[in-house]
């Protein structure tokens, strides 16, 4: 008998879109777990709303484009987009906000550009950017920590049955820091703020630091499973912490530590789940490093000096535009050829 199985020196890839997407979903679970512990079950409801909207939009667009429904619906890519959107939106946002975001992501950012594998921009980040530009007030209402709402109350908030009381809504730790510094007019410094205000925890935002640590855990697992490459997250974390570290060393009273920035806002989610997007990110090894690094630098710049509470979404979208250029300049030499010739 002749053995026709693949020779041992060829790498066998047991990968399909579905396997990758399912693993990404699993990797999000630690972060989601911490989120539920911190905020309550409302985030699960948002995940459900986003998933339903994403699947419906995906089915509709596939039908309009005459593509096989079952194959693409079951690959899980729409679910990943939906979950990322739900995790970046405020957990008590009204249901229509997250639906609008998801529809934009799936219909405009994904299918109008050609569907799975063709989109030049990260759909989840398009949803976030479009919604924060269109509905800035709703997109910055984050629940005050320690506010214990029952499931019914959370449901009422999301479905618009209860009035949206402003007192229920606070700011993210990043926002709180920026606002306090602006109000303080130089009379207040960051170490005091971090020590006194209860929105801040051990090393970043109270509670939120554990959610982002959950994302870190899931991201490391993805890397260990070889679902993502290390270059993009490493580049992102380097870019963010180098810039943050330099400014922090220069003036620790005005600039928060790199640790604070890494565990605040969308940094960890961005590092492991957004800049690692195989479609809208770079495809070369060096390109991924550059992509991540620049995204980190721009995210920090927008977050600290810009008007928006977090800059990860805008940084990623800006870098998505640069991907063809980066890929062109970092193309590896063909085997056997001299470098670049």
């Amino acid at each position: 008998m002749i053995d026709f199985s693949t020779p041992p020196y060829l790498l066998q890839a047991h990968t399909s879109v579905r396997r990758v997407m399912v693993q990404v979903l699993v990797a999000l679970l630690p972060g989601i777990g911490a989120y539920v512990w911190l905020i309550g079950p409302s985030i699960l409801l948002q995940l459900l709303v986003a998933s339903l909207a994403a699947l419906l939009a995906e089915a509709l667009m596939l039908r309009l484009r005459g593509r096989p429904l079952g194959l693409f619906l079951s690959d899980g890519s729409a679910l990943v987009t939906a979950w990322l959107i739900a995790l970046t939106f405020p957990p008590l946002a009204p249901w229509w906000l997250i639906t609008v975001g998801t529809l934009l992501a799936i219909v405009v950012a994904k299918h109008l550009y050609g569907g799975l594998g063709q989109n030049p921009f990260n759909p989840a980040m398009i949803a976030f950017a479009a919604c924060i530009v269109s509905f800035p007030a709703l997109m910055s209402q984050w629940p005050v920590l320690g506010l214990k709402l029952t499931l019914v109350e959370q449901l009422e908030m999301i479905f618009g049955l209860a009035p949206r009381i402003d007192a229920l809504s606070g700011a993210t730790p990043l926002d709180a820091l920026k606002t306090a510094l602006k109000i303080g007019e130089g009379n207040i410094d960051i170490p005091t703020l971090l020590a006194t205000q209860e929105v801040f925890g051990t090393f970043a935002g109270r509670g939120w630091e554990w959610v982002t640590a959950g994302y870190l855990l899931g991201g490391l697992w993805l890397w260990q499973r070889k679902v993502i490459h290390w270059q993009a997250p490493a580049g992102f974390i380097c870019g963010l912490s180098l810039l943050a570290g330099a400014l922090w060393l220069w003036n620790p009273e005005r600039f928060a530590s790199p640790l604070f920035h890494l565990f605040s806002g969308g940094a960890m989610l961005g590092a492991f789940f957004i800049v690692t997007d195989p479609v809208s990110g770079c495809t070369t090894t060096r390109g991924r490093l550059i992509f991540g690094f620049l995204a980190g630098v721009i995210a920090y710049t927008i977050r600290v000096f810009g008007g928006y509470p977090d800059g990860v979404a805008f940084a990623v979208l800006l870098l998505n535009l640069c991907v063809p250029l980066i890929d062109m300049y970092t193309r590896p030499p063909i085997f056997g050829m001299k470098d670049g010739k």
Partner: protein
Amino acid sequence: MISREEFAQIRNNGVWSQNTSLVQILGLCPLLAVTTNLVNGVMLSLATILVMAVSNVAVASLRNLIPHEIRIPVFILIVAALVTVVDLVLNAQLHQLYLVLGIFIPLIVTNCIVLARVEAFANRNPPLQSLFDGVFMGVGMLWTLALLGGLRELIGAGTLFSGIDMVLPGVQPLQLLPADYPGFLLAILPPGAFILLGCLIAWKNWIEARMAARARRPGHRQTATPAVADGR
């Protein structure tokens, strides 16, 4: 004089098959900036129609006198003179609207649609044909800008005809969506104009593809449409 077929062709070209915004994609600057609501889009289009009609007639009448080498400066002079008139009239009669449309009225001079029609059509055709070409090209722009402006206004703010009291005093704008509609700001911002214009172009191409498929179907009477060789 003008034959019936010639008239129909000029009309179809202007309103549909050579539509300035959807096919020639000319004059995007005023299109993006002004169509934040229906009234602005319509009023700017009306001003442009006026300029296009008169400048086309003027150029067509003078086309045998204008030296070929310096025709563009002469065209610009003619168009600029007309735009100045429109600008002053709007400033005097509809001052509120003039403030809203702002720089885009004087900028009709540089609007590539006006120069394109003057150069591509009026410079080679008699005045009457040129008049109809100017008017129908403008009508094509009018309905597109009205549609785009209406869509952007409806999605972005939930109203229709806001600002109509600047044109017709006493008329109230329509509030189509509930008053607590939060407003989808993206539609009002320039990206919304690009996205919606893209959708409108896709819609037009879809209609044409469907009409072409229907015409190709066996048993259907073949209606051959002559290819239009028209300057862009």
